[in-house]
């Protein structure tokens, strides 16, 4: 386990695992069995959260795009069309799953799986509270970076296996884009990691906890924030960077030949990735589960101890709500961007990545290092 420096030790917060293990052991079961019962719970919970997040995301996309274009959007499926994404999903589940005759069946099936699995695995490190994450691995954010680099292999695989020139071009574009934007992304993350002296996402959030909104990383890393957001959008293949599936040029890129559940996997993967990126932006730059005013102060003004069970419960709920709210604010901006800006060309995309973002990210890293040496109190000495 990661040990926190004593000076910044936050209140312990809600520890569901410990409480659950206590209850199970109270029923007379052994320690190992209790652990075994606990293990699947957070995973299933996060998987469900990710899928529900996608449904919300699809609904938002439909509604916001409609508002941007002065339409009404989905209306009849449920109140305000909230059941529309569910209807979309059901349609995809029941559609015929076609594998083209000349396609490579094995790789064609494996491609979408390889795209989706790393994205879901990355949810391992997303914290919703001090102890509200699947595993506080020391690698933290680095695990996400390395997992997200597996995705282009799945895209190349499905592009190749489809035996279609548009698919192949889309797959190649996806790989080129993903490789180019990974480097500035990693450099932007590195600057944050340098300030918090840890790769762990929990430590990164705790380092921003001191003075509420004022101590969030966005004020100390404004350039890094912009670089990270641009790169995250490019990695998610969102407009203005959706070249791999540019409809006007490539039909649908690597997904051209896909239908039914395999297409749904791509669809799910891209939206889970968007929510994940937004969550990580909020963790890295917007204080994660932190409330704009530190909850310790609020509890102090109300004359409550932060360790009281009820206060802990409220704090944890506020933390989850804050994380999700920040993430969905960013998702809102991503959707608004998608429906307002035009797509960049492939040469502009690569120019932006290699000739602009990469040097800026390097300079940002160097300046952060210099500031950390000069003002260790503000930049995490």
């Amino acid at each position, binding site marked *: *386990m*990661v040990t926190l420096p004593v000076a910044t030790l936050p209140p312990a917060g809600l520890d569901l695992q410990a409480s659950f293990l206590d209850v199970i052991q109270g029923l007379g079961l052994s320690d*190992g069995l209790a652990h*075994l019962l606990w293990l699947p719970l957070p995973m299933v919970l996060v998987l469900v959260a990710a899928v529900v997040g996608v449904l919300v995301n699809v609904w938002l996309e439909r509604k916001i795009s409609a508002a941007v274009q002065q339409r009404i959007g989905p209306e009849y499926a449920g109140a305000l069309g909230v059941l529309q994404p569910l209807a979309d999903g059901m349609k995809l589940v029941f559609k015929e799953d076609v594998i083209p005759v000349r396609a490579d069946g094995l*790789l064609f099936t494996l491609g979408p799986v390889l795209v989706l699995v790393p994205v879901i695995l990355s949810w391992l490190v997303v914290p919703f509270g001090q102890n509200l994450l699947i595993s506080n*691995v*020391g*690698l933290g954010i*680095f*695990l996400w*970076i*390395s*997992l997200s*680099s*597996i995705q*282009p*292999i799945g895209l*190349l*695989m499905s*592009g*190749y296996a489809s035996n279609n020139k548009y698919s*192949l071009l889309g*797959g*190649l574009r996806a*790989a*080129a884009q*993903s*490789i180019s934007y*990974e480097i500035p992304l990693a450099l932007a993350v590195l600057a944050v990691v340098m300030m918090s002296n840890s*790769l762990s996402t929990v430590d990164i959030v705790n380092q921003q906890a001191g003075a509420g909104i004022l101590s969030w990383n966005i004020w100390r890393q404004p350039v890094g924030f912009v670089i990270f957001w641009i790169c995250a959008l490019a990695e998610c293949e969102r407009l203005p960077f959706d070249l791999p599936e540019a409809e006007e040029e490539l039909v649908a890129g690597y997904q051209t030949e896909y239908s039914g559940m395999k297409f749904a996997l791509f669809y799910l993967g891209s939206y889970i990735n968007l929510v994940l990126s937004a969550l990580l932006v909020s963790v890295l730059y917007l204080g994660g589960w932190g409330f704009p005013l530190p909850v310790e102060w609020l509890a102090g003004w109300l004359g409550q101890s932060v360790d009281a069970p009820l206060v802990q419960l409220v704090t944890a709920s506020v933390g989850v709500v804050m994380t999700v709210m920040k993430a969905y604010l960013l998702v809102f901006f991503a959707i608004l961007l998608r429906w307002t800006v035009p797509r960049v060309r492939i040469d502009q995309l690569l120019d932006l990545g290699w000739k602009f973002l990469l040097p800026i990210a390097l300079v940002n890293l160097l300046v952060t290092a210099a500031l950390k040496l000069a003002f260790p109190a503000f930049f995490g000495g």
Partner: protein
Amino acid sequence: MTIASSTQLICFAVLSAALLLGSLGVVLLPNIVYSAFLLGGVFLSMAGLYLMLNASFVAAAQVLVYVGAVNVLILFAIMLVNKKETLAAIPGLPLRRVLSGLVCGGLGVLLLRVAFITPWPLPGPTPVGEEATIRIGEHLFSDYLLPFELASVLLLMAMIGAIVLARRDVFASDVITGEPVDQGLLEKTRTPLLSEIPALESTP
């Protein structure tokens, strides 16, 4: 046997099997694209083995560098030049196969012998766990500084070489063949398509 140790044993068996079968497939499969994808699988199972040795940072770096960069670039190169053409028959192919098989087999026997006669200290050193990242950083900037910097110089040389090879158009003659480069082909002026169409005014 506890749950943890039996899980570990099963994981080790699965990963080793994947590693061995995958690498055999990389070498033996006739389709180069399958070989490249299997290579990614081999790198991933190797990362899994690192993970089982409690070297999580090395495992993540393995995935990032070998799967995310090296393997993707190999695939990229294969798919950009993957022309369906029948290659000219190489003379004496069976003999070559036997020879290279013998060399590889000999190397394998040598490695197995080393693995069996070396007195391995068991159990190994205690894993440092999460501190590994800090330790690796300290070593890279103290006693391994020279190899680290030399590796970066090597990469720089490779990069400059790649740029020279890729930008042949800036040279008057081809770097490899020595033939003059047809630069007119690269900088052909664009002729607008519509101006060559007969005037539309003639239509009534």
